[in-house]
């Protein structure tokens, strides 16, 4: 094996080449962004590209938005080390898209225009519901943003050979700065093109690795799996069976059920995913977007299965665990093993591009919430000019970018998968119940929405604070550190890492309870929303303005 011993190596491959490929990606995409999308924008263009994309383009962009560093690097690593349980984890991310396809995408497209709060406040009291929704949108996006930036920090030390604190922080700041440039110059249109390019590169790169790995085993997956087990002295054939990660104790088992719930119900409540449905003109195109997204995301996770087992077979769990990024290093190490510095450079460039594209999508969505929901609708009570609104959105984008940079610097040692799971759990608790109730339940009203959003938000975050992820996990003998976020304290009383099992049903219950204890019902608005959601009436009208 050509790898240097881990003790000597702070990175693998040729850092200059990795940086060069990433820089090339940045330059090319910036040129494209400037060409397709620079100039003055209306609010609609800034937030949603004014519905200018078709379903196929948007589906590819959704895949680009969704296949974050956590799913690309994290799932490949989980499969390499935990085999079946890593695969099990990936399936929740895919099945979740059926919730979006069947229940959410088209109806959202038909009833909203700029933000998630447009739909939730449609037939309810505008101000309180917009404030509540904006709060949860910002919370979910913040956790997701932190996860991506933490991922950038980890990648830096692995791929660029930069191990010094200051240099790592500088790279995070550069990533954040480039992202702000995309968003300010290109708005949603520019961001979408970055996501499309990134998705195609990511899928193509993963496809090449998959074919390469399979080719080494005569295109026989069973032989590949066997080689992975043979090369994994600890796990061995247990790689094919459930239990390596989630089957240890009853608590880890229940924890996985909780995580599964959060994954499958969280996706359709992620604000940056929902925002993408507004970038197409009609509900038919929204449907087509999700169709494309499901094919691409599903296909990608199938490739990841081969990449993960390939990393176990060709790199080996020992080398992966010793690498600076641990499990996240599995896919890059495999690329290096197969194609040397060049393939590693390409995969690293794609990984950085991934973070850039996802962070840009999150920033657009959150800035739309600030400018449209909080500034225009709440603060200015709907009375503000387009120009002022876009200006606020641009300022918000810069501020969010700076928060992401600072957060990324502080969060760079945090576990990415945990932060992402947190974002999904909060989205599934605080957002999804209210989305489904307002689209499907006649009796839903303002009190129900507020109970559900705040109840879901507070219970999800509160349970996490008192869970073992924040304090009280046993000290790992190898590193001398606890796996919890805080060291040397233990105030946890909630046994699970993921709050979904409690907070999601609770938020549904609170939504019901709030609604039945309040008499508010606006029959006219309900009729308008239901008719528009199912017939698509008025969507084209809104677009042409």
């Amino acid at each position, binding site marked *: 094996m050509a790898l240097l011993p881990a003790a000597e190596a702070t990175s693998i491959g040729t850092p200059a080449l990795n940086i060069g490929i990433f820089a090339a990606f940045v330059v090319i995409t910036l040129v494209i962004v400037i060409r397709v999308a620079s100039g003055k924008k209306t609010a609609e263009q800034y937030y949603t590209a004014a519905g200018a994309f078709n379903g196929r383009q948007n589906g590819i962009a959704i895949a680009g938005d969704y296949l974050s560093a956590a799913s690309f690097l994290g799932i490949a690593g989980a499969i390499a080390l935990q085999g*079946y349980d890593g*695969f*099990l984890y990936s*399936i*929740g991310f*895919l*099945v979740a*898209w*059926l*919730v979006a*396809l*069947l*229940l959410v995408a088209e109806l959202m497209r038909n009833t909203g*225009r700029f933000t998630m709060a447009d739909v939730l406040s449609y037939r309810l009291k505008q101000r309180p519901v917009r404030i509540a929704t904006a709060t949860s949108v910002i919370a979910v996006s913040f956790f997701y943003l932190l996860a991506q930036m933490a991922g950038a920090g980890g990648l830096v030390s692995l791929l660029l050979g930069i191990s010094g604190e200051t240099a790592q922080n500088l790279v995070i700041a550069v990533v954040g700065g480039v992202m702000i440039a995309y968003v300010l110059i290109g708005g949603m249109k520019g961001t979408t093109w970055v996501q499309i390019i990134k998705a195609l590169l990511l899928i193509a790169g993963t496809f090449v690795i998959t074919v390469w790995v399979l080719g080494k085993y005569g295109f026989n*997956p*069973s032989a590949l*799996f*066997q080689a992975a*087990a043979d090369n994994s002295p600890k796990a061995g*054939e247990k790689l*094919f*069976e*459930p*239990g390596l990660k*989630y*089957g240890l104790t009853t608590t880890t*088992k229940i924890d*996985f*059920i909780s995580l*599964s719930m959060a994954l*499958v119900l969280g996706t359709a409540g992620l604000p940056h995913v929902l925002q993408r449905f507004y970038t197409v003109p009609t509900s*038919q195109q929204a*449907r*087509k977007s*999700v*169709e494309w997204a*499901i*094919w691409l995301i*599903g296909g990608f*996770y*199938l490739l990841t299965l081969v990449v993960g087992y390939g990393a176990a077979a060709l790199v080996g769990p020992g080398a992966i665990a010793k690498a600076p990024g641990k499990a996240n290093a599995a896919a890059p190490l495999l690329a290096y093993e197969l194609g040397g510095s060049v393939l590693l450079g390409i995969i690293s460039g794609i990984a950085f591009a991934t973070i850039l594209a996802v962070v840009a999508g999150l920033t657009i969505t959150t800035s739309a919430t600030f400018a449209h929901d909080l500034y225009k609708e709440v603060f200015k009570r709907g009375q503000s000019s387009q120009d002022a609104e876009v200006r606020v959105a641009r300022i918000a984008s810069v501020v969010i970018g700076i928060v992401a940079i600072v957060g990324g610097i502080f969060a760079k040692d945090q576990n990415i998968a945990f932060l992402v799971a947190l974002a999904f759990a909060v989205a599934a608790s605080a957002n999804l119940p209210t989305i489904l109730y307002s689209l*499907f339940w006649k009796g839903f009203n303002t009190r129900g929405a507020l109970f559900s959003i705040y109840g879901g938000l507070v219970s999800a975050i509160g349970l996490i604070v008192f869970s073992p992820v924040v304090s009280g996990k046993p000290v790992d003998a190898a590193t001398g550190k606890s796996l919890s976020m805080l060291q040397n304290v233990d105030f946890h009383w909630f046994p699970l890492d993921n709050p979904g099992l409690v907070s999601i049903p609770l938020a549904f219950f609170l939504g019901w309870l709030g609604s039945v204890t309040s008499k508010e019902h606006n*029959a*006219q608005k309900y*009729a*308008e929303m*239901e*008719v*528009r959601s*199912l*017939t*698509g*009436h*008025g969507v084209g*009208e*809104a677009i042409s*303005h």
Partner: protein
Amino acid sequence: MSNDARTQHEDAYLALQSTEEFQALRKKFRGFVFPMTGFFLAWYFLYVLLSIFAPGFMGQRVAGTITVGLLFGLGQFVTTFAITIIYARWANRELDPMAEQLGARLDGAKEN
């Protein structure tokens, strides 16, 4: 979104909502997506629960290194893709014409 047009529409929306045709569209849509959602969620959680609580069964070899659990997992991909195809074809064929017709009726009401 023009608010004037909306106010003009309000009665039209209420009127359309109470028509038999609209109720048929609503029933048709819900009649498809609710059971389908129930099915895929049940099938997904069955897979998760079996993996977690019946690892022996899921770890059984079917051939070589291929386990029952792997086939169940790949089955999740198959059903997800299948539901996507079935729903999209059904919606394009059955739902869209009905929705379009009802939407056009509202535009007619606006012109009058």
